[in-house]
């Protein structure tokens, strides 16, 4: 087997088998990235890389390739450029992959993307020429063979490609078999949807171990009771456990001092995620953690303790 090539810091950590913490940045409907850059700077000391979202929920935002490039240039934080198959056909995607390479991006996460119907431009044509598995395959073809459709690329891209997985999926077996397809396509890492249910997560991670793709578990530390409640209500397929909601609610009700409230929320997140992650680490089911709590960068020092523990 040929030696695995390394193109990024993330790729290097995966290759060395080091436990990884990645963050998430969500550029908005703006051409000015100063808020996102500020958050990137705040999380940079703690994470190896940060995902940069591609118009999540099909709501138009600044292009994720441009945003990833600017974040990397301005902060030095490596990005995981999220790319959905929703908005471009194979020609467009391949062109973007080369463009991303030219802009210095070295990690891409292949995603299907939320349907156009859900977003703020519902009349747009949903493309879905490829899917999340065949986009992985396209990246690997371009990187590993230096070709697209058997045509030589003069200076081919050199980047790592990851894929998403959803441990909350029901039926779970359908999701597991789909992960198998993504692995076959050449996914080099997997970032999961947010999880709160330990038993289900263990079952899922055990089932996908056979594919031998490093897994970063998606977590969502909750900044406040409002965020926790909103997440529980509005994120389909993810339920925040009732006891957690109750604890967060009691902070809102019983702690009036704002600073103390913040500290308490941070501590509660630490107390919940510490044993959760430790259990999965001890079972050798995880290669890292992907924290999706955007606009909650103050949690990273504590998260760092969680994953180091």
């Amino acid at each position, binding site marked *: 087997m040929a030696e695995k090539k390394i193109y990024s810091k993330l790729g290097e950590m995966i290759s060395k088998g080091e436990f990884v913490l990645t963050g998430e940045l969500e550029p908005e409907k703006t051409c000015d990235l100063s808020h996102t850059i500020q958050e990137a700077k705040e999380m940079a000391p703690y994470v190896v890389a940060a995902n940069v979202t591609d118009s999540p929920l099909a709501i138009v935002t600044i292009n994720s390739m441009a945003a990833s490039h600017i974040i990397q240039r301005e902060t030095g934080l490596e990005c995981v450029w999220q790319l959905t198959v929703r908005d471009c056909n194979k020609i467009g995607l391949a062109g973007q992959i080369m463009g991303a390479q030219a802009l210095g991006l070295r990690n891409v996460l292949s995603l299907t993307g939320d*349907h156009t*119907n859900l977003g703020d431009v519902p009349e747009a044509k949903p493309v879905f020429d*490829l*899917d999340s598995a065949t986009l992985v395959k396209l990246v690997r073809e371009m990187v590993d063979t230096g070709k697209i459709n058997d045509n030589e690329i003069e200076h081919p891209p050199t980047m790592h490609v990851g894929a998403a997985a959803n441990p909350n999926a*029901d039926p779970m*077996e359908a999701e597991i078999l789909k992960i198998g397809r993504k692995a076959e396509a050449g996914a080099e890492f997997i970032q999961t949807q947010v999880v709160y249910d330990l038993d289900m997560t263990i079952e899922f991670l055990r089932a996908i171990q056979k594919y031998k793709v490093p897994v970063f578990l998606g977590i969502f530390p909750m900044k406040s009771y409002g965020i926790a409640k909103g997440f529980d209500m509005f994120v*389909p397929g993810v339920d925040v456990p009732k006891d957690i909601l109750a604890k967060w609610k009691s902070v809102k009700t019983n702690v009036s001092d704002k600073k103390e409230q913040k500290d308490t929320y941070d501590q509660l997140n630490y107390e919940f995620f510490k044993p959760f992650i430790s259990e999965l680490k001890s079972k050798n089911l995880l290669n890292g953690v992907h924290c999706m709590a955007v606009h909650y960068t103050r949690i990273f020092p504590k998260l760092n303790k969680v994953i180091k523990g």
Partner: protein
Amino acid sequence: MVVITTKKPVDEVLKVLKENDVRSLVVVSCGVCAALCQTGGTEGLKKWTEILEKEGFDILVGIVSEDVCDNRVMMKDLRKIDDSVKDADAILTLSCGLGVQSIVQVLSKKHPNKKVFVTNNTEFMGMTERIGRFRMRCLGCGDCLLNETGGICPVTTCAKALMNGPCGGMVDGKCEVGNYERDCGWVLIYNRLKAIGRLDLFSKLREPRDWSDSGHQREVIFR
């Protein structure tokens, strides 16, 4: 198989006729699919005749034709009413898009300047569940996958027509499009393949659809 049609708003049709300075009309109503969809047939012809006459249009003749979409049938039926076709400002068609285009094509030599309009929107090739309920289950993509997907088509049952589903928009077997009320096509496929003992097919990484033949007018010639 039925080509499913729905009615365009009456005002939209009347507006088109007025914009085109149409005063006299021949009405051709489809007696097959549109009749089943209650957008054509004898009833449709009767209703449209009433509407048009009330609006002051002159109906020279109205016919119900079997297979408006069959050029041969249409040629024969239109030949019988050729004088009216010649005199009419336009032909109004109570059919699917195939019917309209069949009439345009059939008249292209003898009456190349004849205007042809349609009262319906063509929805899809439909599977009939009952009269009044039809489902889109086939897109006519030209590369049928049904032998590998348990007889359930991902092109029409998956909102994203994915070749490798389900996607992250599936929750409890339902699809993110339509507020999680419709089944996820790929879960239907999974359940079906599981039931027939062919989950090996579900595990298969599928190539994207080949669109290379889609850039021109498709036709089938078998003799």
